[in-house]
C-alpha cells in the first residue's frame, strides 16, 4: 500500500512538472490521473482465452484416449504390425527399384500428373478470380459476399475424392472427371484467399477512383488487381503444390492416370514395396522442387513490386 501511494504521488509530480512546460489548457495530470487508481491486485491468471485453450486441449485429450480405448485391437497384432511396417519402410526407402516401367515412362507419368494439377489450378484460378471479386467486402454488396462465402464453404466441406467420384458418374472415370472434380476445391480455396487479398486494399483508393467517375470494371482492373497481383500469384503457386499432391491421390483413388495410378498399382495390386519406394522418391523430389521454385518466384515477385 505504501508502494502504491508512492507511485501515484510520484506520477502526479511528474505530470505537474510536464504540464508546467506546456502552454495548453489541459494538463497531463487531468488527462491521465484524475480518476485513475492503479490496481496492484494479483494478476488474473485465467482469462477467457486460456480457459478456452485448456478446454480444447482437455477435450481433445479425452477424445484421443476414448479412441484408443475403444479401438478394435483383436483382429490385428499391433506389435507385429509395427515391426512389419518398419521392415517395409526399410525395403521401400533403402532398395527402391522400378520393375514394371522405365525411368522415361515414370517421368512421362509425372508430367501427366503435373498437367492435371496445372489445368485444375488454371480453371480454379480463373473462376476464383471472378468469385473472389464478388466475395470481397469492399467491392460487392454484403448479401452477395455472404452468399458466395457460404457457397464456397459448402464446396470445401465435401472431400475432393467425393467430388471426383460424383463427376465420374456423369463424365466417366478419367482425366475429365478428375480435373473438374478437383477444380471445385481449388475454386473454393482460391476464392477465399483472393477475396482476402482484395480486402487488404485501402478503401480510400477505391473511393478516389469512384469519385473520378471510374466504373466497377475500371476500379477492378486499374487498382484492385494490380495492387494484389503478388499475393494472387503466390496463393496460386501454393495451390498448385497442393493440387499436385491431390492429383497423385486422385490418380490412385479415381483412376485419373499419372504417377498416382502407378503408385496405387504398385502398392495395392502388386504389393511391390521397392516400386512404391521408387515412386515415392520421385514424388518427393518433384514436391520439393515445386516448393523451392515457388519460394524463389515469391521472392522475385516481392522484389519486383
Amino acid at each position, binding site marked *: 500500500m505504501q508502494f502504491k501511494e508512492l507511485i501515484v504521488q510520484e506520477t502526479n509530480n511528474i505530470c505537474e512538472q510536464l504540464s508546467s512546460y506546456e502552454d495548453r489548457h489541459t494538463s497531463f495530470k487531468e488527462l491521465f490521473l484524475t480518476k485513475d487508481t492503479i490496481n496492484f491486485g494479483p494478476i488474473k491468471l485465467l482469462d*477467457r*482465452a486460456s480457459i*478456452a*485453450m485448456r478446454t*480444447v*486441449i482437455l477435450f*481433445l*485429450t479425452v*477424445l*484421443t484416449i476414448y*479412441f*484408443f480405448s475403444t*479401438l*478394435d485391437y483383436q*483382429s*490385428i497384432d499391433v506389435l*507385429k*504390425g*509395427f515391426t*512389419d*511396417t518398419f521392415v*517395409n*519402410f526399410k525395403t521401400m526407402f533403402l532398395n527402391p527399384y522400378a520393375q514394371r516401367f522405365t525411368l522415361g515412362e515414370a517421368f512421362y507419368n509425372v508430367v*501427366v500428373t*503435373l*498437367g*492435371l494439377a*496445372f*489445368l485444375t489450378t*488454371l480453371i480454379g484460378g480463373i473462376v476464383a478470380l471472378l468469385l473472389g471479386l464478388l466475395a470481397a467486402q469492399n467491392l460487392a454488396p454484403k448479401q452477395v459476399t455472404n452468399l458466395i462465402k457460404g457457397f464456397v*464453404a459448402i464446396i470445401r*466441406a465435401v*472431400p475432393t*475424392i*467425393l467430388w471426383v*467420384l*460424383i463427376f465420374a*458418374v*456423369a*463424365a466417366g472415370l*478419367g*482425366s*475429365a*472427371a478428375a*480435373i*473438374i472434380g478437383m477444380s471445385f476445391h481449388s475454386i473454393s480455396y482460391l476464392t477465399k484467399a483472393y477475396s482476402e487479398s482484395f480486402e487488404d486494399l485501402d478503401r480510400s483508393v477505391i473511393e478516389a477512383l469512384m469519385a473520378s467517375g471510374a466504373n466497377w470494371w475500371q476500379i477492378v482492373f486499374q487498382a484492385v488487381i494490380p495492387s494484389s497481383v503478388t499475393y494472387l500469384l503466390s496463393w496460386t503457386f501454393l495451390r498448385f503444390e497442393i493440387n499436385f499432391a491431390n492429383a497423385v*491421390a486422385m490418380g490412385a*483413388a479415381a483412376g485419373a*492416370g499419372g504417377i*498416382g495410378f502407378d*503408385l*496405387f498399382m504398385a*502398392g495395392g495390386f502388386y504389393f511391390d*514395396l521397392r516400386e*512404391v519406394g521408387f515412386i*515415392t522418391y520421385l*514424388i*518427393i523430389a518433384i*514436391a*520439393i522442387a515445386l516448393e523451392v521454385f515457388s519460394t524463389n518466384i515469391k521472392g522475385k515477385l516481392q522484389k519486383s513490386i
Partner: protein
Amino acid sequence: MRDDIFTKRRNGNLVFLLALLILSVGSIIITEYDVIKGFTSITRAVIWGGSNFYPDAESLRILPEIFPKLQETVLMSIAATTVAAVLALVLSLAGSQTTRINRIFSIVSRGIASLFRNIPIVAWAMVLMISFSQSPLTGYLALFFGSLGFLTRAFMETIDEVGNNSIEALQATGAGYFHIIFQAVLPASMPQMISWLLYMIETNIRDATLVGVLTGTGIGFSFDLYYKRFDYHAASLVVLLIVITVIVIELVSNNVRRVIL
C-alpha cells in the same frame, strides 16, 4: 518514357499469357483431357445429381450403419492430430531457430518434417495397409504421419514468429532452457498452435475419406460401397453427413479461434 513503361508492361503480360496458353495446350494433350466433355459434364452432373443424387426416405435405413463409421472417422482424425501435435511440438522446439539446442538437432527435425510432409498420403496408406490390413489403425497412422510433417512445419514457424526478445529477457535473468520454454515460448505461441491444430483436424476428416476409399476403412469405405453398388441415394446421404460434420467442426473451431486469438 511513359510509352516505354506501358509497352513493357503490355509485353510482359503478353509473354505471361502466351506461357499460360502453351502450358494449357500441353497439359490438355498429355492428360488426354477432353475440354468439351469436361465442361458439358458439369451440366450433365447437375441434371443427374438433381434426379438421382439425393437422400430419399428409403436410404435413411443405413443411418444405424453409418453413424458408428462416421464417429470412428471423426475420432480417428482427432486422435491422429492430437498425438501428432504432441510429437510435432517436441520436433519444432528442437528445430526452431530460436529454441534449438544446436544445429544438428535443427537440421534433423527440419528434415523429418519435410520428408513426412512430402510423402503422399497414398504411399502411407498403401504401405500401412500391407501390415495393418483393413483396421482403423491403418487410417490412423496414415493421417498421423501426414499431420506430423505439416504440424511440425507450422509450429516451427509459429515459434520463430514469437521472436527472441522475451527469450533474451529470460536468459538475462538466468532462467534455464526449460523455464524459457514453459514461461515464454509456449504461452506466446499456444493460441496460434491451437488454431493450426483445429485446422488440421478439419483437413484430416476430409483426408480420412480418401484414405477410407483407398484402404477400405471408416466413412470413405461406406461411401465407396454404396457408390459401387449404384445406391446413389445412400451415397448422397453419406456425403451429406460428411458435409454437416465438417461444417460443424469448422464453426466450432472458428468460434474457438475468435476467443483465443
